[in-house]
């Protein structure tokens, strides 16, 4: 292969998809750099799978172009694109054994001797002893690995993964996440992974694009997205956030705001929303960044930390940590995760407490947004 430097980039420009009056994907620009592990993350129906299928050629975009490297593949049918897909349900051919499933793509392209390559692939996915099994004789995890091998053997420019781990149970899913990551590192092919599981996206991908209602909300490295979300959707969908409605009093190197009678500070560069004194702002803080102190010890809290008072409404012990819900003037149901290192026995429901955290961990969001956007709902909890 004589790849130009942009040989394996996937570039979507102005790509959109509408079904009748429903817009599944709004015009979207996206560049997936060659060799990266890219995740499209979003709830079901956000347009992530449609985007993936447009790259595969299984769905025709309403507008826009799909470029693989410098080649416009928008009008190419799926069987002529150097792209392969790992389907959500695996879609293994039930009438062919594992060996023939994996060899399928090579045979269609007229490769005569497939044995060596198939054996290598079986080795890669650690299924060497299952070559002559039929798909229905394999476990879910094994079928999943066959689906990966069947796609990878073709050395595609891009491997598309459509919620490939959705059907697996939690433990297996964790193992397969590491496995896929290992395979990607080993083969160096660009992976575009669609998932609704934010933990999965953060564990595996170098870059995550969070999608919501047919648009990309934010894109970046997992840690960057997590620490510095730019919308309430990202703040709530990626982990949990406490969003406190506050009034801005001063804008300088730090933004100073008041909420529930207390003062909260955050660095101005962690506040993407346009702020002005007297305006409103959502002050965000991740639950694990907060330290909980009993009200009696409030004097011992170092100065310079953001603080807000409250009363513990609920606690739940989950082994490595304890989760507290705190009601206070700044907000109700503020989440605090404390590591179970030295548990203060006074921190029980009803106790008066002070929440304090480093202002550097605070982020600010535009208060015009829906505070609940992206937060798990009862039906979305699954």
């Amino acid at each position, binding site marked *: 292969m004589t790849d130009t430097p942009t040989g394996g980039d996937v570039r979507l420009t102005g790509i959109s998809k509408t079904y009748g009056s429903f817009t599944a994907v709004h015009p979207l620009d996206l560049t997936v750099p060659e060799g990266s592990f890219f995740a499209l993350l979003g709830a079901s129906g956000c347009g992530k799978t449609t985007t993936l299928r447009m790259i595969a050629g*299984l769905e025709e975009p309403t507008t826009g172009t799909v470029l693989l490297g410098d080649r416009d593949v928008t009008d190419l049918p799926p069987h002529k694109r150097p792209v392969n897909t790992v389907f959500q349900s695996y879609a293994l051919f039930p009438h062919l054994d594992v060996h023939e499933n994996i060899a399928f*793509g090579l045979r269609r392209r007229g490769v005569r001797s497939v044995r060596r390559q198939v054996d290598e692939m079986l080795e890669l996915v650690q299924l060497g002893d299952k070559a002559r099994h039929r798909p229905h004789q394999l476990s879910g995890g094994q079928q999943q690995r066959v689906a990966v091998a069947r796609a990878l053997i073709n050395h595609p420019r891009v491997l598309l993964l459509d919620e490939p781990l959705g059907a697996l149970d939690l433990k297996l899913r964790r193992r397969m996440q590491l496995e896929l990551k290992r395979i990607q590192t080993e083969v160096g092919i660009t992976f575009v992974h669609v998932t609704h599981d934010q933990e999965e996206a953060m564990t595996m991908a170098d870059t995550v694009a969070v999608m919501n209602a047919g648009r990309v909300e934010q894109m970046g490295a997992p840690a960057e997205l997590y620490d510095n979300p730019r919308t309430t959707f990202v703040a709530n969908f990626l982990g949990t956030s406490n969003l406190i409605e506050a009034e801005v009093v001063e804008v300088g190197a730090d933004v100073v705001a008041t909420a529930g009678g207390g003062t909260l500070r955050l660095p101005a560069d962690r506040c993407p929303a346009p702020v002005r004194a007297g305006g409103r702002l959502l002050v965000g803080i991740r639950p694990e960044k907060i330290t909980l102190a009993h009200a009696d010890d409030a004097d011992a809290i170092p100065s310079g930390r953001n603080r807000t008072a409250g009363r513990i409404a609920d606690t739940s012990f989950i082994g490595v940590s304890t989760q507290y819900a705190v009601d206070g003037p700044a907000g109700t149901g503020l989440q605090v995760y404390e590591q179970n290192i030295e548990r203060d026995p006074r921190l029980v429901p009803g106790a008066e407490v002070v929440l304090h955290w480093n202002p550097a961990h605070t982020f600010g969001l535009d208060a015009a947004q829906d505070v609940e956007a992206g937060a798990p709902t009862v039906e979305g909890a699954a």
Partner: protein
Amino acid sequence: MTTATDTPPRAGAAAPAVRRRSARRRLVPYWLLLPGVLWLLVFFALPMVYQASTSVQTGSLEEGFRVTWHFPTYWEALRDYHPQFAKTLLYAGTATLLCLLLGYPLAYLIAFRAGRWRHVLLVLVIAPFFTSFLIRTLAWKTILADGGAVVGALDALHVLDVTGRLGWTEGDRVLATPLAVICGLTYNFLPFMILPLYTSLERIDGRLHEAARDLYASPAATFRKVTLPLSMPGVVSGTLLTFIPASGDYVNAELLGSTDTKMIGNVIQGQFLRVLDYPTAAALSFLLMAVVLVTVTVYIRRAGTEDLV
């Protein structure tokens, strides 16, 4: 049972009760089988035995028939009527092939492309069953009538030249030729081909087509390598449901054919009802059954369906 009386009821009664219930549960499958087995016994096994005994009898209607274990009847039947056996296999086989060629595209269309018309089309497939088999076959007499529009069109398109050379039609006639019999058989058994084909095609996961396309298979290769192999159970059951009854059919040959197009079914009917040579008729029935069984067994072996899931 004895323990139930010896031990206190509280501890002991439970165990035999459970045992009795599980014993009853084990019997359930046999109870469910019973009606079917009885039906098979009375309407299949007993008539078979009766026919088998008839086929080795000698005698006449006036003197009465007696079992004399006269096996030569079989050889004589085969010697006298092997041309009709050959025609039966030819007509039924050709009709089955035509059913497959006509039925597969239709079943494919209904299964994958019909959308909301699917159920309407399925009803149309079985709609002919609302009319009697005989009336539909008689209608074909009109359709294929000498000098009719169909024959005229076939003649104009030079189709009759080709079929004439194959010996399937004579001059500008279609009625009373092998082609007419094959047409009748094809028409009458087409739904028995389409329905199993549809069932097996409809079961194929559409994502397998996408997977094949994704793995560099052109639409044609997708059909050859994925759709067709996965629909083989339907092909096999469809051809069997068409070929087996078509081999035993005599109505189409009777109504649409001539004395030259007699199938084995016509011979058996004649032996039973006109010649009143019951032993020969019974022997022919068994021979037909044997021929069909052998043909089907060879076919299933070659199609290799036991391999399919």
